[in-house]
């Protein structure tokens, strides 16, 4: 008779050998899927790191070469000779001159500390960021590089600001439309206000302006829908349903039907 136990052991070895390529390929597939799914994140992280690396290299360069400020000023002069750029670069020139004047005494004294050098960097960046605004000064690559890296946090500030301004603007426009409505009594204005307040999530006001619009023009479907949506958002689902079914009875509107279905299903 055979050594069955030994044969069983061999079979287990064979099975584990047979399974390994499947396990390895499964792991590889999972890794590939993860890489595909999070590709965007990876690239963002990579780009961020690469930017950080560049910035560190560039900062080191700046520390080592503090003199490039000197040749910078004379190069400005010939450019100002061109007819178009003269007017534009004129104020910039004065600014750059100012910074040069500020930094010049620091360089002339040999007792400059490293900390002092570090302090010098921020004014440089300000200066360069101004320069970057000018497409004419392409030859100043070193400064352009510095500007790109130091600008990174500044960019965020720039992007945040418009949001605030747009919000402010919206508020202002809503107010101005409200003022205008008191004079004009136009349902265009009231509908705009209903829409705007609904978007903002101010449902009581959206409801109020939808009603006003409906008083002025009861045929406007949007006023009905905004009114029903606001009601639903405020938790008054039954009323919203009643309003919509009444409107459907009159007009047989498909949009209203779809909305009613959503509210009934609780998907809204």
């Amino acid at each position, binding site marked *: *008779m*055979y050594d*069955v136990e030994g*044969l*069983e052991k*061999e*079979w287990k*070895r*064979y*099975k584990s*050998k047979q399974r390994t390529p499947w396990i390895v390929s499964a792991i590889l597939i999972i890794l590939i899927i993860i890489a595909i799914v999070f590709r965007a994140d990876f690239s963002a992280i990579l780009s961020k790191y690469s930017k950080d690396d560049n910035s560190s290299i560039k900062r080191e360069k700046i520390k080592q070469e503090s003199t490039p400020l000197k040749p910078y000023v004379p190069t400005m002069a010939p450019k100002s000779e061109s007819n178009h750029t003269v007017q534009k670069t004129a104020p910039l020139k004065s600014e750059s001159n100012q910074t040069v004047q500020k930094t010049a005494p620091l360089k002339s004294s040999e007792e400059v500390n490293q900390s002092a050098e570090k302090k010098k960097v921020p004014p440089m960046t300000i200066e360069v960021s101004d320069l970057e605004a000018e497409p004419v000064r392409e030859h100043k690559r070193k400064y352009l590089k510095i500007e790109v890296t130091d600008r990174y946090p500044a960019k965020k500030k720039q992007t945040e600001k418009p949001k605030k301004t747009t919000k402010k603007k919206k508020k202002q426009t809503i107010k101005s439309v409200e003022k205008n409505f008191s004079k004009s009594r136009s349902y265009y204005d009231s509908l705009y206000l209903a829409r705007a307040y609904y978007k903002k999530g101010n449902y009581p006001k959206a409801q109020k302006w939808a009603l006003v619009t409906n008083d002025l023009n009861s045929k406007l479907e949007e006023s009905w829908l905004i009114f029903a949506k606001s009601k639903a958002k405020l938790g008054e689902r039954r009323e919203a349903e009643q309003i919509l079914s009444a409107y459907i009875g009159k007009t047989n509107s498909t949009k209203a039907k779809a909305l009613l279905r959503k509210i009934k299903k609780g998907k809204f």
Partner: protein
Amino acid sequence: MESRYNPAKNVFIDSIDVEDYINLDSSLNAYDQLLHSIEKPLKMILLFGRPGTGKSILLNHLYQNQKEQKELYYFETPTTNEKEFFQKIFKIITKKDLPPDSQVNFSTLVDYCRSLRGEREIIVLLDEAQMYSQEMMERIRLLSDTRSMKFVVSLHKTENEDLIAKEHFQSRIWEVIELTNGTQVDIQSYIHKKLLKKSLFEVANAIKGSHIKLIHTLTKGNYREANKLLFTVFELYEYYDRNDPSKIRYDQLSIKIIEMAGIKLGYIHV
């Protein structure tokens, strides 16, 4: 007490016994072809195929079925000794034993065979013909040229032997019947028919399609190898049935045990 797997194991003992002959579509086809060939005025017929494709059992089946109707002789074991071989031939032709201390004169034998032309048609089935020397094959050819003797030569087909067979028989063979390994369907019906022939219905039902697929892959459709594999499988079952019955199921054959048998027989290399 005998294990329930013991009779199943014995079903797959390799033999060329006619009782164990299984009628498959492919073997029936080969049998019909062979029967048709011996009816024709052909001198030599070559039955060709890899070992374990059922050549011997087919020859034996033909012999058992046709020995009453035809003058048929079956040389199961090859005789490598020329003297002994022609003594056998002498006995077939004359139906008398050769007197002791006497030798067959080949040319006299050929002349005698020629004289029998039209009177008798002797058919000799030579199994394992690759064992005969080239000289003996040449003499067999000369005997077949007398038209009173026909030879059905069964030959193994390996890569080298294939060449030898082709070279040797090319000008002498009139008909070649080639037997091949079985398909998955052939193997399935072969195994099931074998088990059902011995009324082992439960065991036959326990062998499903996936098991057949694995058996066919491991044995490459060779009937002898399939016999060997299943013999080992049921031997392992017998062991588990006696020593560790919790490890086996009676209603379904275990893939694990088939693979274990495959490892044991060297079909699977760990």
